[in-house]
Structures are given as structure tokens and as C-alpha cells.
């Protein structure tokens, strides 16, 4: 992990509240793995104080991308940055998805809810390079929450989407789409499910994976003070050797095996 105080922004796209920034950061990009994240400074002044965690969305040569939804003051400031300006970032941080070479040739399911699509895009490209057959399920409240749908389709990814209001794709939850998909897959269940999104969605994914006995990895979120293990601010309940503990997700995560995550309201 490094501090790159001057990652030059080279590209910007936006769709309503969603933004994609790409920037040159050769040292960080060389080490980046899908599921890892960056801590990005949003202001030169001490307000807002903390860096904001964002998943690594894409990598191309020496550039990296972040894809984010404006959620408050920090992401709003970040959304104002333009090409030519620089970003001050720490990365790559945390441990990403477990991309085992033996996934080559096997089906993998990536399930993203809303902005949770961010790290799955990088994952999809890496899995494609490995020769896995990746299918992306992308869900949101309404069509405007699926800004990357056209791009995924255009890039030839096997892809399906859902919206709560049915404006595009299947009406309903992305986890319902996941159940359909597993049913349709019949004899060849996914060798791995990777998911990122809001907690209730992740918990539903974990439940389906448990019922169908599928290995699944979930990318969790939490408030982060530092992003590199120094403050113990970012903990989530994780089961280790049968014992539930508060584990720093910035260091040991943010990606965890689904069965190790302890939910606030335990599922049946």
C-alpha cells in the first residue's frame, strides 16, 4: 500500500447522482486486486475531516477508476473534481475477492446492488481474463440506479438486471434474480458467488448461498477512520474458529466468506 498524493484525473463520466473518475496512479494500480479499496481525500482542509473509502472499480494500464454515488458532503465534493486535477489517495487497501486460478472455465455469479456494482466491474474483467464464465446480476430501485447497464451489455458481459419498480429488467429484488438464475443453471451451479451492496441484500445472498451450498464472498461496508488498520473504527461481527469477534474490515476485509459474517438480525 502506498500514499499517492497526486493521482491525475484523466477521465470523468456521470449519470445523475453516479460518477466515474479515472486517474493515473501507476504504483497503486500495479498492485490492485478486485475487492480492494482506496481512501480518497475529499478536501484539502480539515472539513470534511476523514478520507472516504471507495472500491477499486476498474484498472487499465496505469489508470484506476472509482465509481460512486453521491451520498453526502464528501462524495459531493469528489463529484466536483475534473480531469487535470489530482486526487490524494491511499491504496490498494484491504483484501479482495479470492480469485482462484481454478475458476477458469467455471461459472461465477457477481451480484451487485446499486453502487455495489463498483468493485464487481473490476472483478468481472479479471475473471474474464482468467477464463471464468462470469454472469453479472445488477439490481437497483429504478432504472436511474443502473447507470452501468448499457456499458456492461456493450462490453459483452452475460448480464441481467432488476429494479424494484420494474422500469427495467425483472421487477423485484436482485436476490430474486439470483434465485431464478441458480434455478435456470440447473446442473451447473456457480463455482463462486461474489456480492456487494446494502446489508439486507448481502444477508439475503448469504442465505441463498447457504441453502444451495454455494461458496459466496461478500464485500462489506462500514465507517472507516483510517482504512489501514490503525484505529479499530471499522469493525464488523465476523465468526472465526466458531467465535464471533469484532474484526477490522479495512484490514481483514472488506471481502469475507458469506458464512463468516454475523448479522445483526440473524436469519432463520
Amino acid at each position, binding site marked *: 500500500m502506498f500514499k499517492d498524493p497526486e493521482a491525475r484525473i484523466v477521465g470523468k463520466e456521470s449519470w445523475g447522482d453516479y460518477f466515474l473518475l479515472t486517474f493515473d496512479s501507476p504504483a497503486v494500480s500495479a498492485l490492485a486486486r478486485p475487492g480492494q479499496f482506496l481512501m480518497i481525500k475529499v478536501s484539502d482542509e480539515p472539513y470534511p475531516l476523514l478520507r472516504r473509502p471507495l472500491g477499486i472499480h476498474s484498472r487499465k494500464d496505469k489508470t484506476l477508476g472509482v465509481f460512486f454515488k453521491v451520498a453526502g458532503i464528501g462524495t459531493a465534493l469528489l463529484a466536483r473534481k475534473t480531469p487535470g486535477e489530482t486526487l490524494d489517495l491511499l491504496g490498494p487497501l484491504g483484501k479482495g475477492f479470492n480469485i482462484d486460478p481454478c475458476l477458469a472455465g467455471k461459472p461465477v455469479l457477481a451480484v451487485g446492488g446499486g453502487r455495489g456494482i463498483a468493485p464487481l466491474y473490476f472483478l468481472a474483467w479479471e475473471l474474464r481474463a482468467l477464463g471464468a464464465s462470469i454472469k453479472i446480476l445488477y439490481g437497483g430501485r429504478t432504472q436511474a440506479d443502473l447507470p452501468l447497464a448499457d456499458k456492461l451489455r456493450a462490453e459483452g458481459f452475460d448480464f441481467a438486471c432488476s429494479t424494484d419498480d420494474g422500469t427495467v429488467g425483472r421487477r423485484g429484488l436482485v436476490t430474486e434474480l439470483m434465485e431464478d438464475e441458480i434455478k435456470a443453471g440447473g446442473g451447473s451451479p456457480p463455482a463462486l458467488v461474489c456480492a456487494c451492496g446494502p446489508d439486507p441484500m448481502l444477508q439475503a445472498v448469504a442465505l441463498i448461498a447457504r441453502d444451495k451450498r454455494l461458496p459466496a464472498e461478500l464485500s462489506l461496508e462500514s465507517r472507516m477512520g483510517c482504512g*489501514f488498520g490503525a484505529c479499530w473504527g471499522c469493525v464488523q461481527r465476523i465468526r472465526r474458529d466458531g467465535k464471533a469477534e469484532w474484526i477490522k474490515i479495512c484490514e481483514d476485509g472488506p471481502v469475507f466468506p458469506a458464512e463468516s459474517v454475523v448479522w445483526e438480525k440473524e436469519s432463520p
Partner: protein
Amino acid sequence: MSDLSVDLGFLKLKNPILAASGTFGYGLEFEPFLDLNRLGGFVVKGLYYGPREGNPPPRLVETPSGLINAIGLQGIGVEAFIAKVLPKLQALDTAVIVNVCGASEEEYVRVVEALDAEEGIAACEINISCPNVNKDGACPAFSPESTRAVVREVKRASRRPVIVKLSPNVTNIVEIALAAQEAGADAIALVNTFLAMAIDVETRRPKLGNVLGGLSGPAIKPIALRMVYQVASRVKVPVIGMGGIWSGADVLEFMIAGARAVQVGTANLVDPDACLRILGEVEDFCRRKGIERLEDIIATVKT
């Protein structure tokens, strides 16, 4: 080159900048970002005798120029620290200070005794001021009597210099500082965090799992500085000042107010190399002002 070293009497620091407990992990987390040997020193995360769970999340909430934390002193405990972390710190050429916690006087003593057998520790900093472990932020630093009791026991048990870290959540900080000095403190460090709170207006729920937490960062600097000034004007032992330090100018303010050394806390979380940036700014100031010995600036406020 100005001489940036400062002498605490029991310990000479190459420069006055220490990283503060709880914001610097066990030190090693920062190795990818800076050369630890360039620091005056650092204080490791608070240690109880055994491992500790800490508080339920959310443990952090940001406020304007401030951070409220309610970590609850999660940590590995002194035995694991000695076995797994300390050997790596012993190779360093900087002052390693251990922040000592306890649920009782006996526990503080047990931690200090366990550390006494080990090498490579410059001093113990007795944390009698964490706001996040007892109801309403209660801690020994709330009264002169309980301060005196803990410090006396720890002093009796420890072969090392003892720095006592005070809470700002008191009416009369000077009274507590004098009690710590009387009980044998070799130095006084202040301030720990200010007891604070934030509420989500949509849900009317507290924004922290622990309801209350401790405020740190630039938001607290003027109050922390006032307390350091008041204490340094009254005690004889060296004072280590902290609270919201973000720049070289902040360090100088604390030193001019009377601090012999300072600690940088929350800034480390935002910029893991903050201590070195701040040190560079202090150096620049000395060069610009023709200050040969930084120590000459201590307690020189013109009132």
C-alpha cells in the same frame, strides 16, 4: 540546522513530535507510509492486561473538523503485545511509549509489572482518561482522589517513568494535574478526548453504538490549548500537549503555551505521514525565525 530535540528529564526526544495513542495502532501499521525512526516517538494503542472486545459499531462519526470515536479500547492485551508486537518495536531507534489501561488499580499495576520485565519501552503513559469504557465517560481522571490513587500504585510498581494522561472532561484541570504530580507522575499528558454525542435526526437515534463518544481533531484545539496552558503554568513536571494538532503552527502554539512535547492524534488517520509533514513545518519555522534550539520556545507566551 536547528536543534529540535527536547528533554523531558527522564527521556530525551530527537524532536517533540509523538504520535498519540489509539491513532497510531501499534506503530507497525504506519511502516508502509513513513520512517518511524524519524519521529520523536509514538504511543501505542491502549493495553489492558487481557484482550478486549470494544464497543459495538458504529464506532466513528465525523463532525465539523472533528471526529467522535467510541472504540472502547479494543485491543490484544499486554501479553500478546509483548509476545507478538514488542519484538518488532525493539529494533526501532525512537521512543516507544506504552499506553496503559485498567478497569481497576490492580489491573493498571498488573499491566505495568508485565511491561517492567521487557526492554525497548521508553515510558508508560497511564490512560486514566478514556471516555468510552464506563457510563457517562467516568474515569479515574475525574477526581483528584482517584487520580492520586492510581498514579501512586503505578509509580510504586513501575521501574519506568510514568506519564499520566488526563481527561479534559473536568471542571478544574489544574487540580487534577497537581494531584497527579503529587502522586509521583514524571510527566503529564493532556488532553484525551472530549465527551461528545451526535444524533441522526431522521431516526432520532444516536450516531454511535455506544451513544456517547470522545471528540478529537481540530475542533477541540483551542480548548485543549487553554488546558495545556493552565496546567503548564502550574506544574513542575514536563507537560505533553495534544488536541487537534494538524500543522507545525499548532505544535508551536502548544509549545509556546508551555508543552515540552506534543502528540499528534487524529491527523495520523487522515494522513499516515502527518507527523513528518508537521515536523517539516516546525523545522521551516525555526529556520525562518533563526531559532537555534526549539526548546527555547517552550513557555514563552507573552501575556
